[in-house]
């Protein structure tokens, strides 16, 4: 069957199981869009290409399938860049298809030409410029394969306009993809390494598991649970690892790192063994590397061999699929009672509880933690929560305690403000029957606020909790703590968000008092369609604990106790 390049793209997307794509048309993708209507794929018209990439990313993280974004050449393509880098840092499988000027004028600085494969080289897992229509089907097949297998990541395909209109005999490349240089999974780990790690695990008095995104990506939640319970080993999670271990479990320490729970950080620093599973020792997790877990042996398992011995030198480095490694370990993990170690951790937890803002909030004031806690209560901890980046993101990590992942969608590695709303749209498409909440700050919300238009046009049942404190809160916090409270360029003069939202034809609620949190959340849940709640929270609340950048992990700034009255 002879088809155009544009038709081949859609044929291949259908065969990859793609049901929804996020995009924005332009001159160099007109043939692609013209062919689209003949295929059973829903196109979501975003209002900015950055949102297309984030939406594809959010879709991918929730569905576990490849998200797809479309953009035209030049500015359309460059607008994807932030979204692609976000997906790269967080190992999210997306395929971005960009239009390109015709091959006859490639390299001539033609109108809306940009070297997007060159630009995205360091922020994609792989990318392609397709110059022959005959290569198109194979390229799409490879792109999806590369995006979803191994350590997932973004793949970009640049598609010149004449390749979209050129015709060729379409034969879908069935069968496995053969790429001689691509090893999605490293060679099986050495038995000797697995055994040595087991010896350390069974011998440890004060072990801690560090659970990362890899737990969720390899689907190793059950195995991790069994492993921790068998060995009576507490589990701390990275930001992206939250949901990999049930938050309500007695062995769960919650998040570790810069804004991690104090008990988690103290446990890491006092441990005699760290078992790092599918995480990469990011600087936000370790603090000062020189003093990081000095007394601990370290076992590190990751699918990506390039992560092993990168930031933290370890005693046993195991490159492999986490689920299989845990399965190999499980029969040999000795059942242990590590009561003394857990009692020490409980003492740290108890001390933290006494400082918690939830127990100590001054009368009548609305703290963001209360909002997140209320949201957690109202949704019974079962909503998919998509965050933006900043203070609220950390409060979600601390107070929205998911028992099962992947249910937290957040930009961890790149820390991309503006991620929340579009990623929430993608997440809702991935899980139309689940309750999805976007939590964002007033800064990040306005970075992609135009996506309210997409939300309205799609009539998505997405709820948004806006933590409105009139500041770029996290930067303000750093200015307060480390720059003598000199607030520079962090105060926001905001619009009336309710009126803004209503102008898009959407429902809005405003909450200023703690007692109104639950009723507003329940009202939003009961409403059909999108609802945005504008929470007027304390303006100068801080995220605690905080490990200052580069400080030792146990040198945390703690919430003053009793809670200081804010001016």
């Amino acid at each position, binding site marked *: 069957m002879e088809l155009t390049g544009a038709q081949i793209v859609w044929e291949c997307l259908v065969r990859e199981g793609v049901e929804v794509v996020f995009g924005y048309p332009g001159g160099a993708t007109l043939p692609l869009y013209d062919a689209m209507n003949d295929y059973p794929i829903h196109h979501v018209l975003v209002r900015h290409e950055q949102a297309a990439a984030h939406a594809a990313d959010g879709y991918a993280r929730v569905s576990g399938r490849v998200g797809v974004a479309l953009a035209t050449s030049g500015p359309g393509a460059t607008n994807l860049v932030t979204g692609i880098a976000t997906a790269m840092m967080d190992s999210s499988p997306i395929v971005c298809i960009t239009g390109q000027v015709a091959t006859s004028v490639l390299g001539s600085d033609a109108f809306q030409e940009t070297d997007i494969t060159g630009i995205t080289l360091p922020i994609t897992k792989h990318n392609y410029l397709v110059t022959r229509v005959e290569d198109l089907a194979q390229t799409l097949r490879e792109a999806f394969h590369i995006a979803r297998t191994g350590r997932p990541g973004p793949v970009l395909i640049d598609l010149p306009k004449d390749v979209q209109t050129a015709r060729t005999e379409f034969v879908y490349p069935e069968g496995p993809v053969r790429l001689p*240089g691509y090893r999605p999974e490293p060679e099986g780990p050495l038995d000797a390494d697995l055994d040595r790690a087991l010896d350390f695990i069974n011998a440890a008095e004060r072990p801690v598991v560090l659970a990362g995104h890899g737990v969720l990506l390899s689907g190793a939640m059950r195995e991790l649970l069994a492993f921790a319970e068998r060995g009576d080993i507490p589990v701390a999670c990275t930001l992206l690892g939250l949901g990999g271990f049930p938050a309500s479990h007695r062995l769960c320490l919650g998040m570790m790192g810069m804004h991690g729970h104090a008990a988690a950080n103290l446990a890491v620093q006092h441990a005699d063994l760290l078992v790092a599973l599918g995480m990469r020792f990011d600087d936000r997790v370790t603090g000062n590397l020189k003093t990081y877990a*000095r*007394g601990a042996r*370290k076992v590190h398992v990751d699918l990506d*061999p390039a992560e092993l*011995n990168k930031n933290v030198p370890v005693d046993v480095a195991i490159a492999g699929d986490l689920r299989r490694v845990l399965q190999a370990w499980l029969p040999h993990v000795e059942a242990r009672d590590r009561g003394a170690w857990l009692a020490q951790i409980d003492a740290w937890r108890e001390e933290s509880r006494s400082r918690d803002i939830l127990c100590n909030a001054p009368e009548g004031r609305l703290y963001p933690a209360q909002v997140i806690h209320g949201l957690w209560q109202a949704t019974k901890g079962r909503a998919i929560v998509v965050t933006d980046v900043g203070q609220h993101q950390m409060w979600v990590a601390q107070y929205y305690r998911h028992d099962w992942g992947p249910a937290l969608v957040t930009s961890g590695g790149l820390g991309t403000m503006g991620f929340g709303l579009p990623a929430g749209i993608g997440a809702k498409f991935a899980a139309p029957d689940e309750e999805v909440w976007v939590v964002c700050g007033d800064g990040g919300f306005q970075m992609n606020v135009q996506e309210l238009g997409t939300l309205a046009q799609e009539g998505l049942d997405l709820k948004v909790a806006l933590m409105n404190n009139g500041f770029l809160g996290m930067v303000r916090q750093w200015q307060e703590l480390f720059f003598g409270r000199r607030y520079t360029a962090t105060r926001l003069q905001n619009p009336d968000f309710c009126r803004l939202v209503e102008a898009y034809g959407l429902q809005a609620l405003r909450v200023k008092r703690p007692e109104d949190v639950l009723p507003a959340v329940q009202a939003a849940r009961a409403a059909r369609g999108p609802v945005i709640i504008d929470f007027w929270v304390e303006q100068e609340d801080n995220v605690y604990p905080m490990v200052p950048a580069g400080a030792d992990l146990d040198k945390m700034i703690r919430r003053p106790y009793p809670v200081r009255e804010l001016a």
Partner: protein
Amino acid sequence: MQGASHMPEDGAGGRRVKHTLVAWVEDKPGVLNRVASLFRRRNFNIESLTVGHTEARGISRMTIVVDTQGRGSHLVAQNLRKLINVIKVQDVTTAPTVVRDLALIKVRATPETRSEVMQLVHIFRARVVDVAPDSVIIEVTGTEDKIDSLAELLRPLGILEMARTGRVAMVRGRGSNGYPGDLAEGRG
């Protein structure tokens, strides 16, 4: 010692060590750019990089000399392996290898100095490949040390121009490249 390091020496001691890596890559547009971009992004310094065809169609061979800035060469190798178009990477720094660099050196050669130049050419088993009234071009192959020595001795006579290929390396003895058969048979 608990938490003992398994990093190579240059990781622990911060010594600057040059590593020689050999990479077999698909002969496709942009592959050199991908490799170069990786080194730049990861802050590894390339001392030299040579690239050329191999015995197999569709496969190019790169010899890369890299200063890992006190980080392990395993990081360089593992990151190279992550590139889809890179088929195989071997760190040959400590392996028994034949290492060669080739240089063309244009050196001033007046009637007074010509015999001295010729003597050096002879000692270093180099060749004169071009003769002009006041200069000659010398072709010399060998290890980088050997070429450095020759260049050092020629310098007082006046080196006008020098072009070096950078290091190529091959492990001694038997043993195959080990890349997949379909490529060795010339898929690309």
